[in-house]
Every structure is written in C-alpha cells, then in structure tokens.
C-alpha cells in the first residue's frame, strides 16, 4: 500500500510478538500496548476516527491498565528463574500454525468468490455512528449494556467479603 502502512504494521507486529516473547510480564503488557496503539493508528489511517479513538480510549486507557493491575495485584512481577515458557511450546506452536493456516486458507479462498466492485469507501462520521447506535441498533446496544451491568454486579458479588454475624 504505502510506507506509513508498512511502518505501522511492522510496529504492531513487533509489539505483538514482543508481548509473547518477552520474559517479564509487565514488559509483555507494555509491549501489548504498543500493538494496541499500532492497531488504533491503522484504524485512523482508514479514516475510521471513532474506531481508532475508541481503541485508544478503551484498550490503552482501560484494558492495558487492567492488565498491569492484575499482574501487580495477583503475584509479583518478578520473572521466575526457569523462564515463563511452557514445556509443551512445540505442540502449542503446531496448534497455532494449524489454526492460522485454516483461517488463512478460508480468507484466501473466499476473496475470488465475491464479485469485486471497486466502490468509493463510504464516509462514516462519528455522527452517523451515534445516530445508528441510538436508532437502528438501539436494542443490541441496550442488551449489551444489560449484560455488562450484570457482569459488573456479578464481579462485585464475587469480590465481596462475606461479613460474619450479619444475616
């Protein structure tokens, strides 16, 4: 495509591979953030402002923070002596390669099947997305909201201390 795309793609791939290859868990989380940022910039390059900024806001601002908090609160961020890699990494690699090849095969096979009509990319503003969310897709949105609220309440109940003596 063009040079910025390749630069961003390389950065994203580097961040993603560093996230699985680095030994220190917090370093992995920070590398994952680079991959998130790269994805966000890719969205922006496709003129998808809402998706790009929401990616930064949600993934870098919340998910990455959640990941590092989880790492720090559950166990020490010290790297174990014998490494963090599983002993069965060869089998894992085989499974991952198999899944990737199936997905790649499916993608490559499906492209010629579609009638290719080069149309101008639709200009979708944030305004349009908002109107669609509040109009046509309001029911799915509300269902997701109820689901998330239920998950939130469930998490609070799971985390709540059982008070002795009260009820």
């Amino acid at each position, binding site marked *: 495509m063009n040079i910025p795309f390749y630069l961003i793609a390389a950065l994203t791939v580097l961040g993603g591979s560093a996230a699985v290859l680095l030994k*220190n868990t*917090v*370093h992995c989380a*920070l590398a994952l*953030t680079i991959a998130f*940022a790269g994805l966000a910039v890719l969205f922006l390059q496709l003129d998808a*402002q*809402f998706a790009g*900024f*929401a990616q*930064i*806001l949600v993934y*870098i*601002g*919340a998910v*990455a*923070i959640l990941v*590092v*908090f989880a790492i*720090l609160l559950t166990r020490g*961020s010290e790297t174990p002596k014998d490494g963090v890699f599983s002993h069965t990494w060869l089998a894992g690699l085989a499974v991952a390669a198999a899944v990737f090849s199936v997905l790649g095969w499916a993608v490559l096979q499906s492209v010629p099947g579609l009638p290719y009509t080069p149309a101008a990319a639709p200009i979708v*503003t*944030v*305004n349009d997305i908002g109107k669609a969310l509040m109009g046509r897709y309001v029911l799915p949105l509300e269902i997701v909201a109820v689901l998330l609220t239920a998950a939130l309440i469930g998490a609070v109940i799971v985390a709540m201390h059982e008070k002795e003596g009260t009820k």
Partner: protein
Amino acid sequence: MFATLDQIFVLFKQWLVGLLPAGLQPVAGVLLCVVVIIGLFPGLFALTVLLERKGLARIQNRIGPNRAGPFGLLQPIADAIKSLTKEDIVPLSADGTVHFLAPLVLVVAVFMGFAVLPMGRNMVLVDMDASLLFFFAVGASTELSVFMAGWSSRNKYSLLGAMRAVAQMISYEVPLLMSSVAVVMMTGSLSLVKIVEAQNHYTWGLPHWYIFTPWGFAGFVMFAIAATAETNRSPFDLPEGESELVAGYFTEYSGFKFALFFLGEYLGMFSISGLGTTLFLGGWSAPFAFLGWVPSWIWFFGKLMLSICVFIWVRGTLPRLRQDQLMNFAWKFVLPMTLLNLFVAGLWRFLGDGWQRWVVCSAILVLAYVIVGRVEMRRQHVGPRSYRYAE
C-alpha cells in the same frame, strides 16, 4: 483593524508558509503550528510556576521566591538551569528502558491534547470531527506513563504513588467524560470548534455559554472537580502526597526527567483548563457582545489563566483528601450527579424555550444535590478526630 488583530497569527502563518514552494506548504503549516504549541505552553508553564509559588506564598503568609531578579521574576530561569544541570540518577535496580520512556510518553501524550483545542477564531491545529474523543483518548494514555514511572523505579513509594494515581485517574475519568457528554448532547457534535461556535451567540449582549444554564453549571462544577483529580492537583494530590509518599511515582526521578514530569503535570493542567474553557466557558468568545472586538485569542488565554489561578487558589485553600474519601466522593457523589445531569440536559432540550425549563432543571439539580449530600453526610461521623496510636 481589529479583524486583522484577531487573525494576526493566522495571517502571519499564511505569509510565512507562502514563502515556501507549494509542495512543502501543507507540511510546513502543520510543523509551524506544532512548533508554536511546543514553544508557547512551556513558556506559559514557566510563568505559571512563578505565579503559583508567589500566590501560594501569599495565601500561606510567606514571601515566596524573591531573590532571582526583581521580585523573583527570574526564578523560572534559575529553576530551568538547575534542573538541566543536575545529575540524572537512575536507581541501580530500576528498569532502565521503562524508566527512561515514562516521562517521554507523558509529555508526548499531554502535548497531543493541544492539537484539537481551538485557541482563537480559526486557530486550531486539527479540526476533526471527533476532536473531543481524541482529547480523551490521548488523555487516557497518560495513565500508562504514570504506571510505567512508578513500576520501573523499583521503589515502594513510587509503586504506591503510581497505584494511587492510576486508581484515581480511572475513577475520575468517568465523571469527566460524563459531564462533557451533556455538552455534546446539546451541541450535537464532538467537534470542539462547533462546540465553541454553538456558544458564540448573544441575547441582550449576554453570551450563550453553557455555564449559564442549570445543566451547564452543574456540569462545569463536576468537570472542574474531575479535572482537578485528573491532573493530581491538591486537594486530590494523594499520588504525590509529600508527607506520605516522598513524591509519589516520580520519587526516583532527578534532573531533567523530573523537570519533564513537572512539565507534563502543568501541561495537563493547561490542556484540561483549555478543554473546560472550550466546553463550558465559550472558548474564545467574548463575555459581552460589546467586547466582541477584542481578539479572540486574548479571551481564550485569559480564561485559561483564570482557571489556572483558581487551581492555585484551591491548592492553597483545601487540605488533602484521604483515599477512601476520594473514592467515595467519585463513585457515590460525582458520578450519580453527572448521570442525573445527562437526564436534566435531555429535559432542557425537550422542554422548549421558556422559563419553565429553568425552574424544572434547576429544581431537580438542587434537590438532588441536597438529598445526595445529606444522605452521604449522615453516614460520615463528623466530630472531633480520634487517634488510635497518638494519644
């Protein structure tokens, strides 16, 4: 004449860029604006530090810096030379790369916020459709740099400060966003330029700023509280409470990196004040119709400095909160009020013009404020403080 003065920076930029070949002009125009932003706000930072030290000294009945230059006016220069020439110490056990990157990430993320603030008529670097979303997105990435600083220092005070800072910033980001959503609802746009234009109308010579409506006033108060917490300013300065945590997440930073953190904190204050000005105080529009001839950028920076002065005033007045008070305040008072404010903003929109909507909206907000405040205060046991170990 006044129209020229209003647009003087825009015209100057056009003239300067016009000297270059046509192919370079778009890039040069953007670069010029970036250079101006990068030069202007650190200059303002130096001024503000002096103002803050002098103002705090006045509030606390001290004299403040008065040795460097007349009335201590050269103090910022002395500070800058000091921080540039100090030794840059990295703790032996620190995580070198992350320790180095943290202040850079902070300053870069904070500077990016200025790109979308309209600082005067036609004076905005990027006028995009979703500029408010952009502002909050880059603001959210400062949390990560705070965490990076605290974690990489390998110091318990740093880590505690970072945990406090991140918890606080996440908690107060929700009300910050929610109070801005009311403005977006009324304007019907996320573009900061359009938000300012929507407020730039006058009735009987008085402006249509959002702060002069019930929901706008409530929203502005919530926004100001959340913004103070978001910038870790007193009374929400727990992450760097010097009596508890040495300096919080930047305890292990010295020399220029420390200066970068300091700069990042003040730049965050400028950008959030600029956003508050844009959302609620009419941005660059004049406070009275007959003052419309004064250049728009004077109004923007005047309002910005006014909010900075309020920040300093609050810092000199209020004591620091406790962690539980901080969280209770965010989740049990500010967040419900901002949610109610969204509802009130919708009501305001659909009640139509007339005096009824003023009465209804104000009544709902005042009632909610009183009731929530009463209920919350009843749970607090206000009285003489009891000490467990000190007596």
